[in-house]
């Protein structure tokens, strides 16, 4: 009891100094919490984007190498198809033989626009690898629809995912929730049925029960799915077998993708196995791209990555600098306070107080100040996170992918790429671990200050202490 009375009285005596130290620690703690919450928000946004790309259960993604846009793909020995726009109108050329296209004619091409094909047999080989729990193939496709006109305009396109219905827990579809209609069933494997992204359906007047033309074939829309908008999700899902049957290798080619996939989603036995599995797959498929969520993060550009860098670099160092300054101020002021109390401590030693009892008193005072700083700092941290949420603009994440389209126009060749930019809301939230760490930092600063003060007390000889001022 005496300990707390003495502690409270002493803190009240140097209230301004105690508040100054506490505020210093609080600013440091608040900044750490704010930066940590912002960084966590950015990380969550990144995870949101990446998770949606390949599904929550996917640890590794294997995709065929991107085809060259300059040299129209002719994979699988398929036919070379080119659309040329000239002064005499549009013409389609198949293996060099051209015929005119009438205005208003729509070319609908479902193609593996971004990735080269991988044999579907590779899926089973990967699934058989040690430390692989599951593997599923998929076809990430783009349906490009171009309407012939004397004034050429960019093609309209939407993304189509040929999903392995037997592996519902892998791939982008695993992230989607059916909002109306129904999900795929095993019996849909060979049917012309499709699930459409709810947002895409809304903006294109589609609904469950309606139809959508994909690769020149009408598909029945059996359901709409809700997906994270921060994830660049496919617009339409169709059964893998149907996608394989309809898709061509490259929009300008006629090669079939039957028995091919262009993406393989892999789940490793554990997070620690991801690296080893990645290497095994790279050996098995040397030309394929083997990516993990962390490597995927590097492909994302836009303000999201800028924010991540800002939070990780500037924010981190700013927090460290403020904390060091706060610690230094706390130490110096505590040392000064101890120096002013030399006679007091000397008297207590003369009364028979042990050095460690006096040190405990000083440490207690420091800890109390640290707790006050932590409490204020936590408030500041929550306030900072709230301010970020209130004023921070939505972040954008941009994924640029080749469409695979190769068009000849009077002004030259067009090799358009599709950049998909998604707006990701930054939601800064203070996590429990960050909270504990921040409070720990405040207490650490206080203990550090108390330790320096204690060191000074430990060196104090009672006779000197009394003689100095007595």
């Amino acid at each position: 009891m005496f300990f707390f009375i003495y502690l409270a009285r002493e803190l009240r005596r140097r209230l301004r100094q105690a508040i100054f130290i506490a505020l210093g620690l609080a600013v440091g703690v608040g900044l750490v919490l704010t930066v940590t919450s912002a960084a966590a928000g950015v990380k969550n946004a990144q995870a949101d984007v990446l998770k949606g790309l390949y599904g929550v259960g996917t640890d590794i993604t294997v995709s065929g190498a991107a085809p060259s846009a300059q040299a129209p793909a002719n994979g699988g020995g398929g036919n070379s198809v080119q659309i040329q726009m000239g002064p005499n109108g549009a013409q389609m050329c198949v293996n060099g033989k051209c015929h005119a296209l009438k205005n208003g004619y729509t070319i609908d091409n479902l193609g593996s626009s971004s990735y080269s094909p991988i044999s579907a047999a590779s899926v089973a080989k990967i699934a058989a690898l040690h430390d692989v729990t599951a593997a599923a193939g998929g076809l990430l496709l783009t349906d490009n629809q171009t309407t012939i006109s004397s004034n050429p305009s960019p093609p309209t396109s939407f993304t189509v995912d040929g999903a392995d219905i037997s592996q519902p827990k892998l791939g982008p579809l695993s992230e989607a929730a059916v909002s109306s209609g129904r999900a795929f069933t095993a019996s849909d494997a060979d049917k012309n049925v499709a699930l459409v992204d709810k947002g895409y359906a809304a903006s294109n007047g589609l609904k469950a029960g309606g139809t959508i033309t994909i690769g020149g074939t009408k598909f029945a829309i059996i359901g709409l799915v809700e997906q994270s908008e921060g994830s660049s999700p496919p617009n339409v899902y169709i059964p893998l077998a149907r996608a394989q049957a309809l898709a061509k290798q490259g929009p300008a080619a006629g090669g079939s993708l039957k028995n091919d996939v262009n993406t393989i989603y892999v789940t490793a036995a554990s997070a620690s196995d991801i690296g080893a599995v990645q290497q095994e797959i790279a050996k098995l498929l040397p030309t394929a791209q083997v990516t993990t969520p962390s490597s995927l993060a590097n492909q994302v550009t836009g303000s999201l990555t800028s924010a991540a860098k800002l939070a990780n670099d500037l924010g981190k160092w700013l927090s460290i600098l403020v904390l060091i300054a706060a610690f230094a101020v706390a130490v110096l002021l505590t040392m000064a306070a101890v120096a002013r109390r030399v006679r007091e401590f000397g008297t207590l030693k003369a009364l028979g107080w042990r050095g460690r009892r006096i040190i405990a008193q000083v440490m207690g005072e420091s800890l109390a100040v640290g707790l006050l700083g932590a409490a204020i700092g936590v408030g500041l941290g929550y306030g900072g996170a709230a301010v970020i949420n209130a004023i921070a603009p939505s972040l954008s994440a941009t994924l640029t992918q080749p469409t695979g389209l190769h068009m000849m126009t009077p002004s030259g060749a067009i090799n358009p790429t599709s950049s998909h930019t998604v707006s990701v809301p930054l939601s800064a939230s203070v996590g429990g671990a960050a909270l504990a760490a921040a409070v720990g930092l405040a207490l650490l600063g206080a203990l550090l200050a108390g330790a320096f003060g204690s060191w000074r007390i430990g060196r104090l000889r009672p006779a000197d202490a009394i003689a100095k001022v007595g």
Partner: protein
Amino acid sequence: MYELTGVSKAYRAGARTVEAVAGVDLTIDDGEWIAIRGRTGHGKSTLLNLLGGLDRPTAGQVRLDGSDLGRLSDAELTRVRATAIGFVFQTFNLVPTLSAAENVEAALIPLRVPGAARRRRVAAALDSVGLADRAGHLPSELSGGQQQRVAIARALIKEPKVLLADEPTGNLDEETRDEIIALMEKLWRERGLTLVLVSHDGAIARRAQRSAVMSRGHLALRS
């Protein structure tokens, strides 16, 4: 009983060594009141610090009831200060943030006296110095004489064998000085204390049973 044999205390002051106490031999019987006089800087307070275990001699022995204070460990010396020796300082040395009662109570903290017993003893100690009604006052709310009374109560609450007073009236006016000395004399008689009192004041020294003069570190006894 104190037995000082060839006690010296030297300090390093830059390149030279200053001998504040030089070869003091002294015996102080239990219950004796001895006054030590001398000019400022001649070693009176240093000798008092050696008697109180606040400092260790560089030569010789300071024995209190047979135990050589210079050879005790820090913890043992702290224990001796906590139980056997009470100090009264010229500048009172009260903790400014604690009330009169809490300042007195501080002397019982090392003895681990239970809270209720502490409060009872504090009340009795303050009563014995005539400050029962000032228990809750801070030092800044007390006069110099009252502060010194609190300091005396703090020194005596643990019922020490020895009371060491370093210029206890140095900061007080004449009237208050007489009150404090009268109080100390009363407590000395009532409690059978061994009282060692350092003072410039010849009038105070004359009230002691024995007096001694410190000059350049050397002690000369007078009857």
